[in-house]
């Protein structure tokens, strides 16, 4: 007869707790770093995509289509295994000695997510009627000042909800980094499972961690939205 006895003590103390904790820290580091970089990169790509320069526009478009339309897992493998063929031996040796796993995962997550973020920012800006820009200009604001005072504050407000989605996706997608040996939350949960066969406890812990992480990210962005940007939720 198959029976499963729960033993929560294995994940609340001792060695396995330490593993899960270090997994959590790695997930936090990987997510936080990639979120910041993806946002900045996304901003740059969005500006390029809307610019009057044809080359910049075309480059941004190609970037978007390429990275939005290929699976993240393939991109992670590409940066980790594929970059070996392109980079010179000296750099490869250095990367191999220092451990390239974390960096490869961060690069893949950043680039993949930045493509989505760029489109969200662009659609936010485009959703502001162009008459507002014209009105601002005729009221004597310069182009940059019009952007700063009139267009962007409204665009950012519109962009916040989809941005939260992208940040949440990134935090959860970071679990794919385990395929190249980054010891993040899911990796450690699986590790605990293969040592103890208490997969249920380990993955419940991982589930709770991702849930809390997602709620915290949502709350942080909302607080930033309200306190710093002075945007209030519509009733």
């Amino acid at each position: 007869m198959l029976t499963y006895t729960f033993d929560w003590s294995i994940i609340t103390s001792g060695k396995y707790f330490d593993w899960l904790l270090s997994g959590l820290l790695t997930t936090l580091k990987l997510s936080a770093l990639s979120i910041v970089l993806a946002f900045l990169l996304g901003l740059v790509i969005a500006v390029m995509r809307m610019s009057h320069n044809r080359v910049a526009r075309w480059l941004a478009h190609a970037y978007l289509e390429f990275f939005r339309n290929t699976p993240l897992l393939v991109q992670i493998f590409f940066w980790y295994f594929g970059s070996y063929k392109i980079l010179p031996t000296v750099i490869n040796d250095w990367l191999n000695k220092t451990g390239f796993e974390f960096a490869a995962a961060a690069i893949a997550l950043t680039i993949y997510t930045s493509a989505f973020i760029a489109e969200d920012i662009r659609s936010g800006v485009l959703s502001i009627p162009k008459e507002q820009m014209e009105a601002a200009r005729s009221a004597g604001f310069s182009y940059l000042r019009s952007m700063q005072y009139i267009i962007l504050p409204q665009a950012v407000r519109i962009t916040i909800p989809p941005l939260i989605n992208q940040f949440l996706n990134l935090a959860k997608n970071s679990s794919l980094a385990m395929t190249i040996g980054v010891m993040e939350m899911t990796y450690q949960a699986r590790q605990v499972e293969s040592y103890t066969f208490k997969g249920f406890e380990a993955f419940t812990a991982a589930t709770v961690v991702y849930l809390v992480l997602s709620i915290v990210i949502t709350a942080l962005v909302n607080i930033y939205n309200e306190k710093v940007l002075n945007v209030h939720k519509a009733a």
Partner: protein
Amino acid sequence: MKKLVTLFIMAALVTVTAKAALAGDTLADAKKKGVLVVGCKDSLPPFGYVDEKSRQIVGYDIDFVNAIAKKMGVKVELKPVTSASRMPQLQESHIDIIAATMTKNAERAKVIDFSHTYFFTGQKFITKKGTVKSLKDLEGKRIGTAKGSTSEQNVKKTLPTSTVLSFDDYPQAFLALQQGKVAAVTTDEAILAGILAKAPNKDQFEIPNLLISDEPYGLGMRKGDTNFVNFVNKTILEMEKSGEAAKIFNKWFGPDTQFHLQRNFKIAAGK
């Protein structure tokens, strides 16, 4: 929030108990259904891999379960599993038996039942030629293996200063070795021999004679599935007696293969 978590845990509990109630006598159930569902490896020559010509999964493990199914008078359905997924799959009745290079150990035996040892090997390393002479050469180095295997736990015990990187499966671990991302890949010798035999530039790699553990393989079955366990044990003992087991070994590992391994074990009760 609290309610939600309670609800989630309860739902999961119900699933686990429901599944538990279903796990009965595999021998009788499989005979009734006319099919035995086997969890096997599909990229690990010569234990279980896809044959290029027939596009079927073949190998040492497969020949054993085929013999068992033949004796039961049922068909075999092969389901590829990974080292990490095979035990949950068995417990949740997605498969009836594990024939996937699984090492017998006390911890696993608490959760599932093993047959007698049907293959015996030891854990070694595969490295770039000439880089590793003794275990000292691997201290503090990065060593690759596959997730969910015992190989990982053994190497952490033997070389505590090394960093163990667990990849999804052995092909990726070996790719990491080829690119210098790890200094060695470690697992059972027979698996390493299979990787080396398939490697495109095999003269650049070697398996130094550094044994760090014994690895007896067993077929895995659900805990307490006594009728089935007894039947499997009886069958493989008969295969040993009739010489069929030795024939299967020689077919996959013997002098006519690229492995040239000697059969240094016998299938016996109590092992």
